């Protein structure tokens, strides 16, 4: 090949690269929405965040709120043509009626409001295996589940622990399992996870993992449960890090208050907070599972929101170049 031909080929290659660049860039950042799978109503603030416990008569804004409504947030992430979820909500309908839980709808129908088909969800990364975060796996038959091996180890440890009845994987107390070291894993949820494994639709993660280029799982062991995991997602507004219950509360991560501490090593929870600060450069882009201010101006990341079926809220957090708004 003579020099002029070489130059022509190089020039053509560069031109082709330049044309292809926007497409590659579009796949490099993801679009992200948040869906409120349900809302736990009237939860005592102090039960969720001990530093925010209600003090009657107090005018201190940290202690003058008695109860809060906690959303159950699920992340919907689209990177190129890859559709994935972070967490998978829950579906115990009898429990809704009994406890006053409100605004629940099947997760598959909720994402349909965004124009997505449950069959197209290819990956579900669960922040941990609790029933309100891994409860709707069966609605997504084609999705591959990503769960930490450490999470399963932790459940099995608690399952076989020979000591006190309060230290269990499945609660032995009819009053619930709050404050026990490992609890919240009903057999239905475990069977769903096992079902994914049997169908070859599960990846048992051991620590860090890049799910697709730029989308990374970070372990946050004992930040809420034994095998909690975060998810880093590149977007047009910078990197987001989903925390599930490793950081349930955005105010908690902002103010360095622990939240939802049932199974938490509080130091590990703070390290998960720090991980989000390091990756995103602050606390604004940390996506929290149960922040009461979600879908309002009070939690700016989620303020671009609207109300969907059964009063459940949705938020459009970031759009990749070329991705159309799905806000109704």
């Amino acid at each position: 090949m003579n020099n002029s031909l070489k130059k022509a080929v190089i020039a053509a290659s560069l031109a082709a690269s330049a044309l292809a660049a926007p497409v590659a860039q579009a796949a490099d950042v993801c679009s992200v929405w948040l869906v409120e799978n349900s809302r736990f109503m009237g939860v005592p603030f102090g039960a969720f965040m001990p530093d925010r416990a209600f003090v009657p008569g107090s005018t201190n804004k940290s202690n003058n709120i008695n109860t809060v409504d906690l959303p159950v947030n699920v992340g919907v992430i689209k990177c190129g043509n890859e559709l994935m979820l972070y967490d998978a909500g829950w579906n115990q309908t009898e429990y809704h009626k009994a406890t006053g839980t409100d605004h629940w709808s099947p997760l598959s129908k909720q994402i349909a409001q965004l124009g997505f088909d449950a069959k197209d969800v290819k990956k579900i990364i669960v922040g941990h295996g609790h029933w309100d975060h891994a409860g709707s796996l069966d609605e997504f038959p084609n999705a591959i589940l990503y769960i930490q091996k450490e999470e399963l180890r932790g459940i099995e440890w608690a399952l076989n622990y020979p000591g006190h009845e309060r230290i269990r994987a499945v609660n032995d107390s009819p009053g619930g399992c709050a404050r026990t070291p490992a609890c919240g894993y009903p057999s239905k949820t475990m069977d769903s996870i096992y079902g994914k494994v049997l169908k070859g639709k599960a990846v048992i993660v051991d620590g860090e993992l890049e799910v697709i280029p730029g989308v990374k799982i970070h372990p946050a062991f004992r930040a809420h449960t034994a095998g909690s995991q975060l998810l880093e997602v590149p977007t047009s507004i910078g990197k987001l890090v989903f925390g599930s219950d490793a950081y349930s509360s955005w105010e908690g991560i902002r103010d360095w208050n622990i939240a939802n501490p049932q199974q938490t090593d509080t130091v590990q929870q703070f390290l998960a907070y720090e991980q989000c600060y390091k990756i995103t450069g602050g606390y604004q882009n940390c996506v929290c599972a149960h922040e009461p201010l979600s879908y309002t101006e009070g939690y700016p990341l989620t303020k671009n929101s609207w109300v969907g079926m059964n009063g459940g809220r949705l938020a459009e957090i970031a759009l990749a170049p070329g991705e159309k708004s799905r806000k109704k």
Partner: protein
Amino acid sequence: MQIEGSGSQRTARVAAVKGFGVGALVVGLIALMAVAAFRETARPKPQQVATTTEANRVERPAVTAEEEAYARALWPIHAQVKQDAVKMTFAGLAYKMGDIKREAVRQRVAPLTPAFDSAASALNKLHPPASIRELHGEYLEAIKLYREASVTMVKVAVDGRDAHLVDAQLLSEKASGLTLKVGETLWPGEFKPN
């Protein structure tokens, strides 16, 4: 010094004093109501800051003494069944993750079959009130399914075929749905937000 006036003067004075007293009382009451109203509106209402739920909350129907007694008697059975069911699931998970060999599946799961038999036997001794007889039947069905799952699952130790695990998982998941339903009805605080 005139201490007392005439009878008519005294009557008029008493009437005036009474009128003044009643007036003062009325004014006082109005002032009291105004102060109370002001304090009521000025006082922070913490519940209203964050919650709009009370009006929407669905009240649970009252539980009868018979239902409560049944729930109390069922709880220890339920607690054990849940543990055993999850143990069965984890035997399968451990095997599929390569942590244990198939013989270990048998060792872990075989003892659960008599455990489910014991649970069924204990359940059969309970006398559910008519209002929850259907739930009782569903719980019995669940234990039967769990038992069947355990028997099916140990077959993997014989021939190593995953089909046994798949069949067992389907039975177990169905049973778990039933126990969850019963649990949600009888012990709504069984699982709290996590």
